């Protein structure tokens, strides 16, 4: 699997708290058997209700680094949410904090999802708003996010960070490999034999 050490791209600011995955991709678009086409509907209802939503602002067209607030991606476990963001063009997310299932879904899709201090998330959002063309760099090796002259320390759950920088974020292959050890665990759990 590809190693992901750094993402460089234009930023797009959405520095609000508690954005849930129903808002990222409304449930009616979950009526599908593939993830294709979800990028067209990302934040659809928010965009209809808020004139000038960043995802409709031409200044952010082609952006790759989403800057968010606290507890981004809360609510439903739908992997359709990071899929929709990814298919719109998002390759990394920087924010104050993330809901855990969303975070795991991002990692499974190779999207670095890093935390910065609350004030830094706001400052980064403001910097991107002031100068949308200025590239944002998310560096997982240096554990920092930079934009123009500013650099912010960032963190990511260490196991998840390691899996991206070493190219081990395809868990399926690794998990299947451990078949013998898996069987040992299954054999020692009394409920696997229905307590016979």
């Amino acid at each position: 699997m590809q190693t992901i050490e750094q993402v460089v791209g234009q930023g797009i600011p959405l520095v609000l708290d508690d954005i849930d995955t129903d808002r990222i991709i409304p449930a009616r678009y979950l009526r599908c058997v593939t993830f294709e086409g979800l990028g067209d509907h990302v934040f659809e209802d928010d965009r209809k209700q808020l004139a000038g939503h960043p995802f409709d602002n031409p200044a952010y067209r082609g952006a790759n680094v989403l800057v968010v607030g606290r507890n981004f991606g809360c609510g439903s476990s739908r992997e359709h949410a990071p899929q929709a963001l990814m298919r719109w063009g998002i390759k990394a997310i920087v924010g104050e904090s993330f809901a855990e299932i969303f975070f795991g879904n991002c990692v499974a899709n190779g999207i670095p999802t890093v935390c910065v201090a609350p004030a830094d998330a706001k400052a980064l959002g403001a910097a991107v708003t002031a100068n949308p063309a200025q590239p944002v760099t998310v560096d997982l090796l240096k554990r920092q996010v930079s934009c123009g002259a500013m650099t912010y320390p960032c963190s990511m759950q260490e196991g998840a960070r390691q899996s991206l920088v070493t190219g081990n974020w395809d868990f399926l292959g690794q998990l299947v490999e451990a078949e013998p050890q898996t069987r040992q665990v299954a054999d020692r759990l009394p409920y696997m034999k229905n307590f016979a």
Partner: protein
Amino acid sequence: MAQSNGTQNLFNRVWDEHTVRTLPSGQTQLFIGQHLIHEVTSPQAFQMLRDRGLKVRYPERTLATVDHIIPTLSQARPFADGLAEEMMSAIEKNCREFGITLLNLSDKRQGIVHVVGPELGITQPGITLACGDSHTSTHGAFGCIAFGIGTSQVADVLASQTMAMGRPKVRRVGVNGRLPAGVYAKDVILHVIRTLGVQGGVGYAYEFAGEVFERMSMEERMTVCNMSIEGGARCGYINPDQTTVEYLRGRPFAPQGAAFDKATKWWLGLASGPGAQFDDRVEIDGSAIEPTVTWGINPAQSVGVNESIPTAASFPTGEQAGIREALAFMDFKESQPIKGTKIDVAFIGSCTNSRMSDLREAARVAKGHKVAKNVRALVVPGSQQIREQAEKEGLNEIFTTAGFEWRGAGCSMCLAMNPDKLVGREICASSSNRNFKGRQGSPTGRTLLMSPAMVAAAAITGAVADVRELLK
């Protein structure tokens, strides 16, 4: 296994028992004892297996049901919604091809995935359980460790019966004291979320402990654990006790006879002992909890039914923009009482509150009354078995006489992936779990979360009411 828990809490004990190995990333490869799937988050996972030529490793440890897209009126196939029909065909084909048991509409055991698992005795203490749905935390009511997962992880569990995860910390959420009359499990969990915040549980598993949970029935415990995720905790659980054991006795998938006795010993031995250590502890006074209603766009934005909607200024500066956004979306004013808020729709159902005790309490409130004019009210049982039992008890008669619609089993208007939806700016009194913008099918629709008894009270009053006044 000996009952010597010492300082280890149930979560860490079960985690250790299920650890396969440490992955190169440092995460744990965790064995998953039971996997549940449904039609919405599984089709892409099966495709991932096909793309790699993988099989389902333990097909007998995965159970499938259909719930999210199921129409609750006409269930004739093909469904009127072609996309929903396509998803039904996909899960039928996938289960056939990979050898997984599917509780289809024609199976009397069909229902909401988090209702049928416990009902059939599949959910048991000490197991690890995963499902591609965030409300998988429900199963923690049995003292099992249950995680909501995304579709890539559904593929992981199908192919390997394991998944990769970092070990969360464990917070003991103690609620003691006696709940006032008319205060339900739903009020307790809404109050906990209001107290600890929608992000308060991020990084934690919640152990719900104390007198309030000890006194609860299994159905009430499920309501509490169900909404752990709304407090940010991916997993919530309650230690197994005699209530748990008696609930499981005789259920079709539970061990039987001597095996049940053996199981009981193992189950009870897993509970966190008095010396158990936790990464954090909080204490909440149960006697101070009121019937609780949400006023905003996340489940922490709630008040007691006799309180007023808060002012933005009463929140920390950093949170005020979010509070104003919620007030504007709901079109509510600061300091306005929540009681008396007119409603358009009443919904009793969802994996949070669609079980027998929920329907019995709602029926007790509705009995002898009529649904208010201009209110559309529906009751959607959580499973076909619940629907049948409720009909045996005559609850359907009470509901329909009062003017509620009595529907087939499914997720229905909790997330409105089926035809049951709010229209325009309607306000819904709902026994479900999420009041997010647009959650109930209309992008501008509004949701007030509350207990099923409170929903019934709102339905007959036509506005948010204190159920205790109706039960006098």
